[in-house]
């Protein structure tokens, strides 16, 4: 581990010398089949770098200080840490087999990783670079979310069809809520009162009340001309004001726009093919979606609810992060 840390220091210094800090936002896209991360300058709306990384990169997320990108290299069975100054992989973290999605604790000290292949959530201590705990959950753990107060961790298990509520102090599953089939992704509302879970095969988003663990609403989707079984909700993002939720509908090639007060689906935005995960820009004015089968990302104007444009990325884009 020491070797890695010294590498980090070296590359951080290098980045100060080499790169002048820009105000512009930068987007990072994981390319599941391209085994790479595409780096996009959102001012220029252009790819500025393509970084080769470990096999089958899927879930990506920024460190809380925005200096590093954590990458689930699923087929390499580890997590890579990409230094965003030097664009070098500076550290390899042990994650357990087949990491797919993860979430960083609010204090930035831990990474909670869903190991799709072995029914565990692994807790990674980021300072030590070691796994500090394993939490047994349902079959094919996938979606991960952390409550705003850092106390409650959510994991969804795809074949068990549950959202597991995990206490981050004891690392115990304190509750499990049955949801619709194949839950893929979980997202807390900004106030932490609800958690939204998408079910790919069930074709619904289940909104769970965090206090009572009851399902408040099952949101269904309907797109004219599309069969219901082609509408498969995956990624979810909720605006910082908590008023609007965006849900990626997979092979329906659309992002649904939902009013969180009424749970009413107000709009369907046509994006690229097999839309998967999404991310806001830090000012939440733009939303980016990774479109797996058209090998591009769509850029959505959040206020206008319009798709502004698409940009080509690598092969089978899966996740997005923006800083």
């Amino acid at each position: 581990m020491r070797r890695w840390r010294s590498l980090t220091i070296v590359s951080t210094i290098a980045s100060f010398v080499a790169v002048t800090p820009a105000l512009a936002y930068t987007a990072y896209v994981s390319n599941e089949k391209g085994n790479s991360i595409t780096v996009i300058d959102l001012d220029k709306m252009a790819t500025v770098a393509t970084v080769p990384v470990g096999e089958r990169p899927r879930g990506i997320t920024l460190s809380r200080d925005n200096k590093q990108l954590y990458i689930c290299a699923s087929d390499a069975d580890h997590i890579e840490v990409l230094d965003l100054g030097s664009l070098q992989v500076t550290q390899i973290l042990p994650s357990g087999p087949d990491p797919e999605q993860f979430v960083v604790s609010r204090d930035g000290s831990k990474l909670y990783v869903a190991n799709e292949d072995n029914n565990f959530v692994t807790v990674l201590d980021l300072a030590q670079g070691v796994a500090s705990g394993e939490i047994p959950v349902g079959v094919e753990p996938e979606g991960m979310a952390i409550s705003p107060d850092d106390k409650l961790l959510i994991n969804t298990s795809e074949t068990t069809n549950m959202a597991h509520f995990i206490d981050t102090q004891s690392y115990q599953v304190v509750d499990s809520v049955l949801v619709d089939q194949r839950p893929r992704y979980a997202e807390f509302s900004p106030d932490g009162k609800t958690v939204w879970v998408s079910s790919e095969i069930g074709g619904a988003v289940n909104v769970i009340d965090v206090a009572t663990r009851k399902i408040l609403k099952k949101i269904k989707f309907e797109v004219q001309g599309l069969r219901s079984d082609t509408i498969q909700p995956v990624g979810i993002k909720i605006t910082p004001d908590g008023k609007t939720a965006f849900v990626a509908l997979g092979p329906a090639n659309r992002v649904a726009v939902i009013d969180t007060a009424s749970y009413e689906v107000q709009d369907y935005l046509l994006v690229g093919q097999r839309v998967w995960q999404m991310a806001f820009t830090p000012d939440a004015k733009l939303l980016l979606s990774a479109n797996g089968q058209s090998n591009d990302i769509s850029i959505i104007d959040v206020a206008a609810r319009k798709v502004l444009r698409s940009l080509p990325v690598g092969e089978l884009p899966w996740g997005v992060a923006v800083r």
Partner: protein
Amino acid sequence: MNHGKVPFGFLTRLLCGIAAFLLFATDRGEVAAAEAAPLHVPIAYLGEAIPEPPPLSLVEPIAKDKGIAGARLGITDNNTTGQFLHQDFELVEKIIPAGGDLKGAAAALSGAGQKLIVADLAARRLDELADMPEMKDAVILNVRAEDDSLRASDCRANVFHLIPSRAMKADALGQYLISKKWTRWVLVYGTNDPDKAFADAIRRTAKRYRAEIVEERAYEFKAGSRRTDTGEAQVREQMTQLTQRLPDYDVMIVADESEVFGDYLPYRTWDPRPVVGTQGLVPTAWHRSQEQWGGTQLQRRFERTSDRWMLERDYAAWEAVRTIGEAVSRTNSADPATLHKYIVSDDFALAAFKGKPLSFRKWDQQLRQPILLATPLMLVSVSPQEGFLHERTPLDTLGHDEPDSTCRLNP
């Protein structure tokens, strides 16, 4: 786990008990739920050890636990879920010898209160089981018998079909050939009953999709035909003879469930034509090349536990056990009647790595599902094909639709 001093297992069980209690706050009463025994759900796997022909290819491994290996994985998956719901699944394995006492074995299961039965049986034996008075209120899950009669005319209220019927497979293949505009077929079939049954299914499909079977040929197996160390030249000679002087055609369909000659046809036909059917490009519920819709996870789980790749009957048995698991987790009941009612309801949906929720046809209790079309190492396509439409779901374009069947279960 180094966290906390309370033994992990105890705490999990306690918390799960509470979780289960909160989830299903029934009239069970006191908070004693945490102390109560979990809901025990025994699922029996009743099979008959019928000798099966070894694959023609020496490369293909011979699976001795075909079917039951999938059921075992299904139980593991059910239990991983069950630990959070205070439910405990057990597989009771009962394999009788070929021609053995099926009724005796079934009566013993019934006597022990086991009425959830995965049946790895041929059609005649399946009917024998389903017609036993003790089995009247059972849920029997067929993972082997592909006979169309079991869906089209001779349905049993206590039998669910996980394995697709021959008609579903033939339609899946036919739709693909039609979409390729390969509409002139030659049908070559073996002379055993299952071969003839698959040939019948192909004829039905040809009629449905207006393809033309330009000629049919039967191939009779002779003892000397099977490959020997020096047999390659002889095999080539035989297959060339079998396929010469045919009218012009697009594709050769082989019906050889007995695995006697089908794998000898590709590249040895008189005319250069693709071979599809029971060999070559095959329609199947599952294939080792299926990695879409999370399929990789199931393949890996299976390979890890069984040291071989997952075959179609394994998948059907996994689906059977997961069907029970899904119904138990949604109803919190192990009562066959309650489960039956839920499984045929509109609420039931099984996620089974096919990209769509799977459900049962109400009239014949056949699981509707996409069918894969694959060559030995590659997934080629998935049916239903684009453009084959149905008022209910495109999945019902495969096999006997309600109007084609005289069965009216669950009206």
